[in-house]
């Protein structure tokens, strides 16, 4: 028999209040059924609690293309497409009405000469949408006006230059009031991977403000927050750059430190800010190991303590046998991280509180805390109907949890609550 500790109870209450407030601010968003999960028991040396299953709410099927990333703003979701499915290219961005539980396809845009439209993101002010485009030599980004969020209008689609080798990921972030696109460029033969930062002050004429060879052999996702830039550089680990926090700038970043996670293959990053505990010391790092898309994957979620930016240290790990992680989305108010886990669906991790403190029995052989043993794995989701899934991305929003499944399209589930 185990009991939640008082600090967890307080956290749960605060989280519930915050969640209630967020839901109240959600406007016309539906109030989906939510799955309650028990509070964390990170220091209790018992058999891990079996995770619950998120409540399935709806699906927007995409049978003709493989689905890639998902982004949600308000009652509209955007999904991109990948590769070639029976001869149909991943050159579409699909637009979904998600005001009801069942996503409804309302429109799509086709990106010229794209084989994959990878990352998609709407700017914080809702005015622009950015789409990453592959492949070599037709790589680039497409920037759309979102005056009508259900009917994006193309402003520009870049061609040539450093982006032509393929923009594998692209992240929008505002730094000191200026909107930037952080573009991770695929390596090509004789052309190493590179991070290119575009100033989107004039969306019709993106301007390169920083371009840096980066990653061995790939630069993948980046994460920008509070003047820090985190770069997932595969074998080189995660770079931590000052782009404004300590005197650096976007055009002249300063490398502060480098986090090396067990196994390398650093693919994506999320710097967790916990509004309840005020903690900002954990970095979630996704590892993408070699796999066969559609059927197998491998790679863990690594937790890195960045209390000392110059000397980050990995303190915990979450591993799923037979599956590997991909992209993250974190509900910081509730302290839940949603990790796309390809053929493993979606995994919900409790990231509130101490992740790097655990009992001996909860540690891996190399001394890291094992989040599974700590009962931090709180819920799973794999769509409905028992069909095979291969979940690329997740997006948590106040209106629900959205998962982009390469094989089946867009899934919607009720988010986890405490």
């Amino acid at each position, binding site marked *: 028999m185990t009991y939640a500790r008082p600090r967890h109870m307080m956290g749960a209450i605060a989280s519930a209040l915050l969640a209630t407030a967020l839901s109240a601010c959600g406007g016309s968003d539906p109030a989906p059924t939510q799955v309650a999960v028990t509070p964390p028991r990170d220091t209790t040396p018992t058999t891990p609690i079996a995770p619950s299953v998120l409540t399935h709410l709806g699906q927007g099927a995409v049978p003709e293309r*493989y689905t890639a990333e998902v982004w949600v703003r308000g009652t509209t979701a955007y999904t991109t497409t990948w*590769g*070639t*499915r*029976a*001869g149909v*290219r991943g050159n579409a961005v699909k637009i979904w009405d998600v005001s009801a539980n069942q996503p409804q396809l309302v429109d799509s845009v086709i990106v010229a*000469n794209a*084989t*994959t439209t990878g990352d998609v993101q709407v700017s914080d002010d809702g005015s622009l949408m950015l789409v990453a485009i592959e*492949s*070599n030599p*037709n790589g680039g980004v497409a920037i759309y006006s979102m005056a009508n969020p259900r009917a994006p209008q193309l402003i520009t689609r870049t061609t040539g230059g450093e982006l032509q080798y393929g923009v*594998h990921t692209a992240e929008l972030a505002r730094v000191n009031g200026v909107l930037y696109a952080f573009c991770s460029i*695929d*390596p*090509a*033969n*004789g*052309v*190493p991977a590179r991070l290119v930062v575009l100033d989107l002050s004039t969306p019709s004429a993106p301007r390169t403000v920083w371009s840096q060879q980066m990653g*061995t*052999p*790939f630069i*993948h996702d980046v994460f920008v927050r509070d003047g820090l830039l985190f770069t997932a550089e595969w*074998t080189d680990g995660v770079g931590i750059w000052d782009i404004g926090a300590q005197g650096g700038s976007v055009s002249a970043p300063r490398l502060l430190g480098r986090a090396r996670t067990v196994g390398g*293959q650093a*693919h994506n990053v999320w710097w967790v800010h916990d509004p309840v505990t005020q903690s900002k010391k954990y970095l979630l790092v996704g590892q*993408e*190991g*070699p*796999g*066969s*898309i*559609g*059927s*197998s994957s491998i790679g863990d979620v690594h937790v890195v303590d960045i209390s000392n930016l110059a000397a980050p240290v990995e303190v915990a790990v979450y591993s799923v046998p037979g599956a590997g992680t991909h992209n993250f989305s974190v509900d910081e108010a509730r302290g839940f991280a949603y990790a796309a886990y390809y053929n493993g669906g979606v995994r919900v991790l409790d990231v509130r509180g101490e992740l790097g403190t655990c009992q001996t029995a909860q540690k891996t052989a190399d001394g890291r805390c094992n989040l599974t043993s700590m009962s931090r794995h709180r819920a799973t989701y794999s769509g409905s109907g028992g069909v*095979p899934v*291969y979940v690329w991305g997740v997006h948590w929003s106040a209106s629900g949890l959205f998962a982009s499944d*390469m*094989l089946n399209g867009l899934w919607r589930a009720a988010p986890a609550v405490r």
Partner: protein
Amino acid sequence: MGTGLLTTANPALLGRRYTEGYLTQPNLMGDATVGPVRFTGTLNFEGYTLRRGELNAGIYGEGYADRRHPHTLVHEAMLALATPTRAGFRLTVAGGKGFTPYGTDDPMMRPFVKYPVNHHHAQILERVQLLGAVQFARGDRSVTVEQGWFNGDEPVGPFTGPQWSRVGDSRSTRLTVAPHRAIEWQVSRAFVRSPGLIQGGAFDHNQLSSSLRYDVPDKRYALLEIARTDESLGAQRVFRFASALVETSMVHRGWAFSGRAERTDRPESERLLDLFRIPNGHVDFQLVGVTRWSIGTVQLAAPRTGIPRLRSTHVTPFVEVARATARALRTPAVFVPAEFYGSDTQWSVSVGARIHVGTMRRRMGHYVLPAGIRSSNFPSAHTHR
């Protein structure tokens, strides 16, 4: 030499029939021997005649899929120095660009015009290398051990040179036993550093090949071959692709009938805007599937004729038919052969004529002469029909 060729492939992809003509395998070969020094040179002009690649079901490599890539202009330029034979032993050192001591002969010098899928499992070619060999021979019987050091990077285009800084980052070893003048068995292995990305960082390949070859010039030829490629990250093996192939040819009154059966596993990569092209290396170390190709090929070649008023010319007309089936080994796969090609079975019919002028080599990819053979009588199998 060169081959004028018309190929129709149905379906080539997306249920569509493609019919194309080529001048394929245009080569200028030259060998020279001065005392103990032998030069082997081959210029390949496919970069001029075959830039889009040649329809060839299942073939892949160097950025192409289902089309065979053009080879580099300098296909071979090897200088070999052999010591005199002492007590049956002969040492050879060789350097230059060419075939590494791994696997079997270049398909170009074998009976069929279409390459087997296992080309990149069974040969490692167009590398800058240093090679050393020890051969022990008694009459027609010999045992040869070769060791080569070379650059791992695959060619990125027909007119692009190797990464000189990478010469020596890869290696191969081949043991060849010839117990009879017509029989040869070899086993070889290779470590190839990052062939997919010239700047490094892609999968390394650990390759293994073994073959048994029976060759009576002008009469009978057979090859039994198995090959395997492991893609690895450091010491961790990630993917394994295997191949088995048997081919044979019999000549009767100048007519050559040849047959080949092959089963080879192919890694699948994302297709580019041109659906016959793929990126070099695997993006994010991800495959989009593994396809097992099973292909049967038959060829009938007519007796060789000359071209009137052109001395030393030889023309060998042929017709070649292949039936290929492709099956995904991992499911669910995002590369589904039956969806991509429009059928799980593909047919290919090729008619053409192989033309050469002068004396042809019998083999390609060996820089240590078989026991008792001098370079001047080392012609091609095709010239002996």
